[in-house]
């Protein structure tokens, strides 16, 4: 912006007329945007002009205000205004520097019939809310990486361009299916429903973005149409609503699974950042490798332990047998008569056999008495059976 410079006559600062106007104009330019209500008078529109001019009149005091609106914006509003009609004009104060005249630079104009629309809209909103169409538990999660992103858009190059550019920068390989349709004016609601159906019936579309830039209240009305709202709520895939600006809440915003203020924000929501996904895949690949290696190593360890046990088996078997033999030897030992003799018993033999009863011997028989060490020869003197 040019600087406002003054002349100096000694200590006196003096502004030229255009410098003064420019300075005041810059000051006015900092005032906030506002809505002004008034009656339309002196409407001048010409195809050759860049702007449309009108004068707003306050019906009670007769005060007037010059309003300038870009013809491009005015024509898109599709509201051929008539003189005497009451309107709301949104805009900022502006100074026409050449003449030092105050005016309003308008961004949109709305007919004052909107009050009735607002009431009907509020009624519809309550009805649909009561049906549970806007309930948080109805909201579906967006796919992490959709096979294809559906875009429903009007002939709005800016919204579409922003959305496509954001998607490209985050995930260049995205497939996009665009359905361009009428999004404002008569018949727009039906056209939007039809376009939405075409997009959701596409087999690869996993999410649909409603991309519609800002517009007047009336422009955005089709996105609050009951048919559109119901179609959004019952769509086969999640719907992201990027309709209007931050301050607008068309009813489709409430029925959608996510709502954003700009097409750029929608782009960031529907596709992931490819770098994040690649990082996550590297980590998953590492886990996969570690898991299978761990699994196989555990198996190898078990196999080795089994091998050791197998090799140890014959030795164990021999040892066990030897222990058994040792026990048998001891028992055998215990049964040996010689072992008995060593405890002081004796074997007495007569008539060729061991004597077990006194009655088996006769007086005068020769006895052979075997002891642990050596033997004795004796004769029976008496039998006591």
């Amino acid at each position, binding site marked *: 912006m040019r600087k406002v410079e003054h002349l100096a006559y000694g200590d006196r600062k003096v502004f030229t007329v255009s410098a003064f106007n420019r300075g005041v104009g810059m000051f006015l330019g900092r005032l906030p945007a506002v809505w002004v209500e008034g009656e339309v008078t002196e409407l001048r529109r010409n195809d050759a002009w860049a702007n449309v001019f009108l004068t707003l009149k306050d019906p009670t005091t007769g005060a007037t205000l010059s309003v300038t609106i870009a013809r491009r914006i005015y024509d898109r509003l599709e509201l051929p205004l008539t003189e005497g009609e009451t309107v709301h004009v949104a805009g900022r104060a502006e100074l026409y520097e050449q003449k030092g005249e105050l005016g309003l630079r308008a961004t949109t104009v709305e007919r004052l019939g909107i009050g009735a629309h607002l009431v009907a809209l509020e009624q519809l909103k309550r009805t649909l809310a009561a049906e549970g169409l806007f309930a948080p538990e109805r909201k579906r999660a967006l796919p*992490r990486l959709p096979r294809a992103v559906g875009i429903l858009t009007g002939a709005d190059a800016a919204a579409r361009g922003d959305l496509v550019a954001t998607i490209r920068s985050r*995930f260049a390989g*995205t497939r996009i299916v665009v359905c361009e349709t009428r999004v404002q004016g008569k018949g727009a609601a039906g056209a939007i429903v039809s376009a939405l159906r075409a*997009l959701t019936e596409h087999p690869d579309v996993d999410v649909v973005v409603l991309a519609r830039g800002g517009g007047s209240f009336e422009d955005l009305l089709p996105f609050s149409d009951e048919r559109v709202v119901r179609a959004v709520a019952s769509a086969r895939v999640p719907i992201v609503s990027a309709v209007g600006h931050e301050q607008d809440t068309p009813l489709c915003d409430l029925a959608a699974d996510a709502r954003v203020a700009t097409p750029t924000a929608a782009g960031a929501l529907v596709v992931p950042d490819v770098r994040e996904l690649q990082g996550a895949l590297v980590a998953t690949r590492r886990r996969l490798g570690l898991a299978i290696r761990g699994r196989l190593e*555990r198996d190898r360890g078990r196999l080795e332990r089994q091998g050791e046990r197998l090799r140890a088996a014959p030795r164990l078997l021999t040892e066990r047998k030897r222990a058994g033999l040792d026990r048998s030897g001891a028992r055998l030992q215990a049964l040996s008569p010689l072992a008995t003799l060593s405890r002081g018993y004796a074997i007495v033999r007569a008539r060729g056999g061991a004597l077990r009863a006194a009655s088996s011997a006769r007086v005068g028989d020769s006895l052979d008495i075997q002891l642990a060490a050596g033997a004795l020869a004796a004769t029976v003197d008496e039998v006591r059976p």
Partner: protein
Amino acid sequence: MSEPSFEEMSKELEEIVVRLERGDVPVDEAIELFRRGQQLHAECVARLESAELQIEELTAPDPAT
């Protein structure tokens, strides 16, 4: 028939990794799972590397015309 989404593939891959990490899968099945995991991983990576943005235009019937 549409091909599986990245979503589906990466979900299956994650399930395979979790099963393998739990370690209670018989070894033959573990090896089979690992092979499947490798394949899914490669497909996911390939999906991310296709750098061509494709734009397809759909025309829906306008009920008003």
